[in-house]
């Protein structure tokens, strides 16, 4: 039995919001009988984009990822309380029956991801249901996927074992796995959101002129053990990414012959640009 999953790739997303707007367009003013009541004109976005900013000028990084109903397999929104209202379909999609849901504001709080929205005007809880009405009519993917210019979002229909293999193969992450909800939305290159970087610039002064130093080795050590190493680029910059948070350790700048040119200890709880590290010579 194959089921729907959505894979989002942080590294491919240009943050154009086409996915957000295509989804909004689908539900704005539209009633799909048995599937959904119209979305409110303004206010809630059932699929939206989050932004993550790391570091500071001049070394920083900004990335984005979508948040929406995670189509959980172990969905807290589905319980005795929502029986006959919120359903897990055989293809993995979680839907809210708009007629049965009328007046059920109490269901909003059952989603730990905050993805059930209350439509005040129509008195109905709403969320993104994978464009189920389109999928059932034969469309091969939800609108957010079609609208995406970079293939940052993919819809795949796989059996669970294959999906699990793919997820481990490509290091796909889930949002708040600790909640145990078994989401069907997966995130590739999610380190850019969850991990930290540590960067700096190696410079030296010769004859009163300061210059960036290219090509020296920088080592990052934790508890005295080398965790990672890299070389500075033409701007003297180095950057260690995918660091866990928080982390403490030391940095060493080394000459080609292994001579220690500079060393410093660090302790970070979020991404950090250390600024200039001056070396002699």
């Amino acid at each position, binding site marked *: 039995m194959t089921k729907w999953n959505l894979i989002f790739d942080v590294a491919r997303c240009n943050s154009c919001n086409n996915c957000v*707007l295509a989804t909004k367009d689908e539900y704005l003013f539209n009633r799909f009988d048995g599937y959904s009541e119209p979305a409110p004109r303004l206010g809630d976005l059932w699929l939206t984009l989050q932004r993550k900013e790391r570091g500071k000028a001049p070394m920083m990084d900004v990335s984005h990822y979508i948040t929406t109903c995670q189509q959980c397999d172990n969905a807290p929104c589905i319980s005795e309380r929502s029986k006959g209202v919120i359903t897990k379909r055989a293809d993995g999609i979680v839907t809210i029956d708009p007629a049965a849901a009328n007046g059920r504001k109490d269901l909003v709080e059952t989603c730990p991801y905050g993805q059930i929205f209350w439509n005040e005007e129509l008195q109905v809880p709403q969320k993104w249901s994978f464009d189920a009405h389109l999928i059932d009519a034969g469309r091969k993917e939800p609108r957010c996927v079609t*609208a995406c210019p970079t293939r940052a979002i993919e819809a795949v229909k796989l059996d669970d074992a294959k999906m699990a293999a793919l997820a481990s193969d490509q290091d796909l992450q889930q949002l708040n796995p600790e909640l145990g909800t078994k989401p069907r939305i997966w995130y590739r290159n999610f380190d850019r959101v969850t991990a930290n970087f540590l960067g700096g610039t190696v410079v030296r002064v010769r004859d009163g002129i300061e210059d960036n130093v290219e090509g020296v080795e920088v080592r990052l050590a934790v508890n005295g053990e080398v965790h990672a190493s890299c070389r500075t680029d033409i701007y003297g910059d180095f950057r260690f990414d995918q660091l866990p948070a928080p982390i403490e350790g030391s940095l060493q700048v080394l000459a080609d012959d292994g001579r220690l040119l500079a060393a410093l200890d660090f302790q970070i709880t979020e991404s950090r640009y250390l600024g200039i590290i001056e070396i002699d010579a």
Partner: protein
Amino acid sequence: PDGSTRYTQMTNGGPLHVYVRDGRILRTDVIEFGADDPEPWTIEARGRRFSPQRKGCVAPHSLTLKSTVYSEDRILYPMKRVDFDPSGERNPQNRGISGYERISWDEALDIVGSEILRQKRVHGPGAIALAHPSHHQWGNVGYYLSAMMRFGNTVGVTRVVLNPDSWEGWYWGAMHHHGGSMRLGTGSGYGTLEDALKEADQIVYWSADPESQFGGYSGTEASQRRLWAKELGIEAIHINPHYSPTAAFTGGKWFPIVPGTDTALALALMYVWITEDTYDHHFVENRSTGFEEWKDYILGKTDGVPKTPEWQEGETGIAARDCRSLARSWASKKTYLGVGMAGLGFGGACRNASGIQWARAMVMLMAMQGWGRPGVNLGNLAMGTPVDLEFYFPGYADGGMSGELQNTASATNNYVRMPHLLSMNPVRQIVPRQRLPEAILDGKATGYLLDPTSIEAQFMPFEYPAPGYSKIHMLYRYGGSAMGTIADSSRFAKMYRSPELECVVSQSIWMEGETGFADIILPACTQFERFDIGEWNNTGGFGFHWQSAVNHRVIALQHKCIEPLGESRSDYQILWDVCKRIGLGNYFSEGCSELDWAKRVYESSDVAKHISWKDLCRKGYYIVPPEPPALRAPVDMRWFYEGRPKDVPEPFPLPGGYSDKWLHGLQTQSSKFEFIPSSLKRLDPEQADRPALMRYTRPFEGARDGERYKRFPIQLLTPHQRFSFHTSQDGKGSAISDLADHRMPIGGHYYQIVRISPSDAASRGIGHRQLVKVWNDQGAVICAAEVTPRLVEGVAHSYESSASYKPIGEPGASPDIGGCMNILTPNRMQADGTVASAGSLCMVEIEPWSGDGAIQEAAE
């Protein structure tokens, strides 16, 4: 299956399938190409093969259109200002204050028609001015350069003419060094996508954020190409005071430069190239003139100031060591310089007080690194796809049904291929749009021509009033964007309330911006409510062959998807109806409906050779097959670098514009790249703001020195909207209102966002999402603050082009909660002898705002 009908539209951000059910738009969807559509091109580079996806990748503003079609701010009936009595008291002083009453079309057209005739009789030719924006909903028929142009000629109007607002520094500056007047001083981009992917090592995005400006009209077509470049290891460098969405997407080194100082960095790069001898001697020695004199300036022999990396550091805030690293990297690697939205020109930096310098410096950088050498060109992957450019279809500036041969490209395109009536404006008086308020309020204004025929045409001044013509006493305004888009926009609020204007007509789709200053409002419909025909990103005119920005040339019949809402009518219909009132209905229309005109455009084009009219109407679009690799356009400037006759497919410059034999050399007097332009020498070699030998000077607005800086220590950038096309999809309950990067809802009102650095926020006690007053001597705008490390101390960022103008008190003299940042920008021109707008950078102070009561009232 769901009972809907599928139509096709072409928009400013790409083609759409429009699904309609029960007379309402159900959805607007991306077009996925079918089995009967041609396969796309392939580019082979470094052992890889790249082909674009088989769909139209649109801009976000295209996907928000349905929400603005059904906006509560749509004008559904003709309206008259309640205290405007055409045959009695007109009360001009109440414009912008008093309300409106619904009137019938008959009454509206009677008033407008008889006022047109009255103006001519009472004041004489020139009394009626016609003002329009730079942009319009897509098409060849209903476009302002088509139907509206013909209307103006039919009536006889003082045209309110555009300055090259998109091009400024390139038109008034860069062009003098390299020619290219037909493109207003920018590059052409031919062949550069393939060249960049094959040869380039890095791309410098200098004042360029193509993932926000989407190459102009080409949607997100280039995003995928930037991923290809990344996969090939082509590095990105961003010189931009703002960590832009493009920087976030491509990564790479970021230089957060002090706005308005870029020229200093450019000069220092040249200094390093000269002192380390890493410039392209072949180009400089064989293809340029004036380098020795230029070199003396760079080295400081001329003015005693060597333009060293250390010198620029004090101006730009970029460390000298970084400047040296960039110079070395640029010289040792094959580098593309990608300026502005499409890599060929534009860029917010060309639109501030030092824009002319900056654009001049950019082309000099190109010359010193061998412009046209493999892997060295202008571009940022936005242009130069190998689509078939020989296939003819007109762009929006090619004249449509205007019959106007001087102010559109009709003479070489639509007019000769689609026989139709010539039209000509009997009024020679024109007025620059940047100076319209002065024309009305002070009774005089000077402008300079936007004329691409030669490098020198721009030197020609014109005066308002023109000898013997009437001053303006009636304004026919098409669209209503000026409060959001023209510098020092409070001027417009004052202008509208002048008794000099006896009648103001606004032909608008929405109630926004200036619309509420009109006496009579004629409700136009959106493009979904009328027929037209158009090609994606084909502008024609100054943007000749811009179709090479998209991956597939898509030509669409723009269906009338729904009936016009309320009593709104198509622009074409309104203009026709007005013409009928003055006895010129048939002259205006040739008896043709818009669909008839669309068919005539189709018949004049190459599309007619490939698909029948019926099939085009049914299918909705046609895709031009790509051409075989052997027929692809050669790379721009390669011919020049290699010393061959010009071989790129543009008929520019005009044959008489060469000073060497035809096709030999550039358009300049020497036919070479001129470091010291002979055109500027002939004008006035020592003209203070535009000397022939270019010099770095601090911008008059935006520099970090002087008295103003003390009072207004924040430099405010006002670049182009990302999610709206200028004012078009902003405000009016648009779906983009909810995007976190567009506006912020606070207390039920959607505020314009001003982005500020953490340190500026901290020193002023400003928190994230807090209301702030952004102000200077010209006025104040209330915004919501976003505190972000994407800006450094002293720089703030907010988009220009707010659609809504909501003063909390007297129009033009009280804080605006609509978000019109142009209230704060300078109306002074970049240089004497130009109408180069300088609005993209201004000085402001920002402080917490607590005047909630006043806002509550205004919001209601």
